[in-house]
């Protein structure tokens, strides 16, 4: 496989790494995966998740762009006045333009974790070039089922009490510097707009299903507001299907701190990619569009 640095956007200030598979395994006509930042972590992803994923996708024959949104990682901030426009959407739009112009791609799959999934949702909804999306620990809402499974369910688990006592002993809050407090503020999820409700997201998902966008939702046990695969249907009333798949990793932390969990998540995504964009289906798509 090959990795290339690409620069694009205003004054070529945005930066990404494009991973390209060897010619022998490359799936012609397959969409390029675009992975965007999770929180403020640069393009390698939390614990290198994005690098692992991009290299595993390349081994399976798919191209991937790992991107730094403006102002994050090694990309420069956008300096133009843009009113209320979503800068992440503008950055990704610039990336897609670049990939179309220089690499002849016209179909893309968005991938994002946490805030990356939040941004990916809005981009996938509004850009018709996006034909697939993988949302890892994206937008969720607590449900009654969550209350029973998580809030009540854990009361019957001895490990919950054990961990609560240990946490209190080990992780007791210490006063720490202003700079750390500032970073915590940055890390907090204030980027999730308050006015987004379950119904709006459900409508968005239905619109994407209608547009034939393939989706994979991955949730982890470490993500606070979700508990169990069932929660997806409880939130949006949409049953998982072949086109909209839902996965729940009960042993994983939100950022895949453990290598084995990271590998399991990468494998699930690569398998999904293989299944949705096999050489045969891409060839059929190319023929249909010609």
């Amino acid at each position: 496989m090959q990795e290339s640095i690409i620069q694009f956007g205003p004054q070529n200030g945005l930066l990404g790494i494009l991973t390209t598979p060897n010619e022998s395994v490359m799936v012609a006509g397959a969409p390029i995966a675009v992975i965007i930042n999770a929180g403020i972590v640069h393009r390698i992803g939390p614990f290198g998740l994005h690098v692992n994923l991009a290299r595993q996708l390349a081994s399976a024959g798919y191209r991937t762009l790992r991107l730094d949104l403006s102002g994050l990682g090694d990309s420069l901030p956008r300096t133009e006045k843009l009113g209320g426009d979503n800068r992440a959407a503008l950055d990704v739009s610039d990336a897609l333009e670049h990939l179309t112009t220089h690499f002849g791609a016209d179909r893309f799959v968005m991938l994002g974790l946490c805030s990356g999934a939040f941004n990916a949702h809005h981009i996938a909804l509004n850009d018709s070039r996006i034909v697939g999306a993988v949302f890892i620990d994206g937008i969720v809402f607590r449900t009654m089922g969550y209350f029973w499974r998580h809030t009540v369910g854990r009361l019957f688990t001895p490990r919950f009490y054990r961990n609560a006592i240990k946490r209190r002993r080990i992780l007791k809050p210490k006063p720490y510097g202003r700079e750390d407090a500032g970073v915590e503020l940055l890390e907090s999820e204030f980027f999730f707009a308050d006015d987004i409700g379950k119904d709006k997201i459900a409508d968005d998902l239905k619109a994407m299903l209608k547009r034939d966008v393939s989706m994979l939702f991955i949730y982890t046990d470490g993500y606070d507001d979700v508990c169990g695969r069932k929660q997806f249907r409880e939130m949006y009333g949409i049953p998982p299907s072949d086109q909209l798949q839902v996965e729940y990793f009960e042993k994983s932390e939100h950022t895949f701190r453990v290598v084995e969990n990271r590998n399991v998540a990468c494998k699930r995504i690569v398998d999904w990619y293989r299944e949705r964009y096999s050489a045969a289906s891409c060839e059929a798509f190319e023929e249909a569009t010609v």
Partner: protein
Amino acid sequence: MTPFFFGSKQQLLGMLHHARGRKAGAHRTVVICPPIGHEYIRSHWCLRLLARQLTRKGINVLRFDYRGIGDSAGTNQQTTALDQWHQDVHTAIDCACTKTGCRNVMLLGLRYGGTIASAVASQSDKVSSLVLWEPVIDPVQYLRSLRAIHKQMIDLWACRIKTLKDETHEEILGSIYNRGLLAEIENTGLDLDSIDQPQFIVDSYDRRGRYTTNEMQRFMPTDDEDSWSVLKMLETGWLRASTSRQIVLMADEMFRRLEQFEQLGPYSVGPLDSPSPMMPVSTDAFAPASRAVN
């Protein structure tokens, strides 16, 4: 800023920040040695901001990723000996000299990057000076602390889990290390006495007793909290804005003194790509922006 791949088979990723302002010159070049493991991710933004601040003082800065870490080729577990990371720093120094035309560089190392930088400085005549920022003085204690946080993290998991720990490899905080490498890290501490170059050490006031300052060594105490050994801070960005500003001022002052004692010039005029007003621009010097990865 110019991103590029360099080194054998282009396996390392580098970011060259070009010097700006009237002091800009090839001889003022810094190579940043980042930390390893999860500390590399935590400090990435801080080091990028530091590099940008240094350029405003007319200093060229090369940031790079060691093999197996960040955007460089390979995986962490493929690194089997400390010497491989030392070699990466030597390669980065050569690359910085080629690209900016300098004769020698200042090495700036954070955490274990400081320990690597000090080992390289004792081997290389291309290092004019050293800045060590919270360096790992006691590697045994360093690894013990990393393992303790890892153990805490696993112990507090919602269910029972195990991470890789066999005869050849060990997983610590999201990275798999070769046992041989860990043994070497454990046995290789910070040996400041073996370094001839001037050193500027930045560390917590509480650890001031661990350094013996002399005319070649200056120590700047900070009141920064030690967040490296706290599980709660494992994924928190590490930013030290005020300390960064102090380091920029001190690096500028060190370059001024090195110039005064003629420790930097005359510098060679090699292939250059910096837009510094003192140097012509040659695009031929750009390393390829792509590489093959196994």
